């Protein structure tokens, strides 16, 4: 039972922070299918920095977690500039731009990983080994039945994500910037009429999504995969998009969707193990989160509505 909560949370929270980035971008009116590419590229920059710094300083790469996290956020943000420039400045189709960025991220990071491994370490390897970041348990709270699992074996990044998520919620719903951002996705002309630069708002929203995706990618790399390789492109970026659409482009329902994914995923694994079925049967339980999502959507998506100006190129002269 405890493992369901522990594993579920450590999967759901990175997904959630990535989905928040997606919400920022889509609420400002920019369709963002590039989350997958952002998280991969961010994780690549983070992992590369961690490995290189560890190599130069002689420290263990497992301890480079926070350094990697910061570099991953910068990397994801830097990469998201491409999406912002293409879809805002160059007025490219946002879906095209997103898909292109995913393909470019996969190609560039695999190419650069092998190049850097060959140049710096002289090894023909297509991955950066990272290990798993250390975990901690809060002693008193962990003894509470059931809920105690939330405080057991916590990855440090889970705390960081929760803090950032609360901040992101505050900014989006309680500040002037957040209001303008949400208005840019509904009625950009009115934002412009109020004397605010729609392009700047959208640009910063895309950069925020890149930064948060980079963070999420690094968390995946330091937990479930314990390395950076092309295996980081598991489709979690698309899963985050699914979660935010499921959550109707709002932060709290999206959290619920991410938790559902996380717990259904770890729950499925747990059931398969508990029933002591042969390993080939685990595949059947792995579909649990996806089937549940589809079933729930049948009941809940009638009222779902995307931001009105989503995917539309902002044209100042349009009425």
């Amino acid at each position: 039972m405890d493992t369901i909560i522990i594993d579920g949370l450590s999967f759901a929270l990175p997904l959630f922070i990535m989905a928040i980035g997606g919400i920022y971008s889509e609420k400002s009116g920019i369709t963002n299918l590039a989350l997958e590419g952002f998280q991969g590229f961010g994780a690549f920059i983070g992992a590369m920095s961690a490995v290189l710094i560890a190599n130069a300083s002689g420290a263990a790469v497992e301890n480079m977690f926070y350094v990697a996290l910061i570099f991953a956020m910068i990397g994801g943000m830097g990469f998201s500039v491409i999406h912002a420039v293409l879809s805002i400045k160059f007025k490219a189709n946002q879906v095209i731009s997103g898909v292109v960025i995913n393909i470019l991220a996969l190609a560039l990071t695999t190419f650069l990983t092998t190049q850097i491994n060959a140049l710096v370490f002289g090894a023909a390897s297509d991955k950066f080994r990272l290990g798993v970041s250390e975990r901690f348990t809060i002693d008193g709270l962990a003894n509470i039945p059931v809920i105690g699992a939330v405080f057991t074996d916590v990855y440090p990044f889970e705390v960081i994500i929760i803090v950032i998520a609360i901040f992101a919620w505050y900014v989006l719903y309680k500040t002037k910037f957040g209001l303008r951002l949400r208005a840019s996705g509904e009625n950009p002309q009115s934002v412009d009429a109020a004397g605010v630069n729609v392009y700047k708002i959208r640009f910063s929203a895309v950069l925020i999504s890149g930064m948060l995706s980079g963070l999420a990618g690094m968390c995946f790399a330091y937990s479930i995969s314990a390395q950076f390789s092309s295996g980081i492109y598991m489709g979690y970026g698309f899963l985050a998009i699914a979660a935010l659409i499921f959550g109707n482009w709002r932060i709290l329902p999206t959290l619920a969707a991410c938790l559902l994914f996380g717990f259904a995923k770890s729950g499925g694994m747990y059931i398969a193990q508990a029933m002591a079925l042969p390993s080939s049967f685990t595949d059947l339980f792995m579909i649990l989160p996806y089937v549940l999502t589809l079933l729930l959507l049948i009941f809940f998506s009638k009222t779902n509505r995307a931001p009105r100006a989503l995917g539309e190129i902002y044209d100042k002269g349009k009425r």
Partner: protein
Amino acid sequence: MSKDNKKTSLRYRLLWPIRNEKWQPITIPVASILFSFIVAAIVILLLGKNPIQAFYNLFQGAGIFPKATYAGYKSMLTDFLSLLDAMTPLVFASLAVAVALRAGLFNIGVSGQMLFSGFIATIIVGYSGLDAFVAKPLVLLIGMIAGGLMGGLVGWLKYKFNIHEVVTTIMLNYIAQYVISFFIHNYYIDPVSRQSKYITEAARLTLVNFEFANLKMDIPLGFILAIAVAIFVKFLLDKTVVGFEIKAVGSNRDAAKYTGIKVGSNMILAMIISGGLAGLAGVTYYLGDFASIQPKVLTSLGFDSIAVALLGNSHPIGIIFSSFLISIIDQGSTYMSSQAGIRQEIASVIIGLILLFSACGAYVKHKVSRLKEKEVDRKDSES
């Protein structure tokens, strides 16, 4: 002022190849392809290799130019046929994406639909021992129906329950991947290759090691069908009522509704067609070149096809050319990496760059027309 004018006119002159609006759908992709090869050349130079040599190797590997030596029973023709073999599913998959895009839907689940149809065709026909003349058409038919059903489900869920097609297709991708992996592991596994058992030669859509003129070649039977289907899709979209309605729904859903077009059934129909095309991609992929399915792996081809469709302007004939180019880069990369000593991954970087530059196409178009206006103004003021 005059200096500024000169600058404009120089830029204007530099842009001459892509100035003609009529040719822009062709010239802009070609320009972006050239541009990405130039960038790739710079990267290869930085790695200390000869880019011209590398690109030549790329085309040699794909069977466009002759290699220096060939192994027994191989020639440029066999390489070229392998290229067409690899290109076939890509054409179908890109057409699938394009049809959905025309209806304003984003079919991100081509990979899942391919896997599903490939699997169904494999278990029904692949191990049946049917005669080739029955088995091969049956494979195509089953692939089309299986893919069409899965695509139709996506369209129906969108119409009936307002579930976003991106979510549905992503979920179905995962579900197909795991469920099929379960069945392969339990019933159809080959213990040595850890993949599904090889299907019979009769059911395969690629004639393997066909001996002709002292050569052993792989003949992709699906290729001719792919070209025919591309032309058919063009006809369907441009010349029929169905195509017109699908495009109307895609360009403005509300306007289509007001003119009395049934939006829901057209969306479902578009997804059925899209899924059916993805199904054809699936059978030509899994029952063509490979003859077996690797469990728990979704082919990246389904995602690449989105980009290929966009590079071809979602136009069926454009798609034939764009898949041809992307397949050349893909197929030639192995030979290039062995000959020129450049890592194979540079090929996907080149593909990524081509797509990146072609995504800027709309902007270039816009800039060129602005420059044109300026040029007209300048001429007016001079005279």
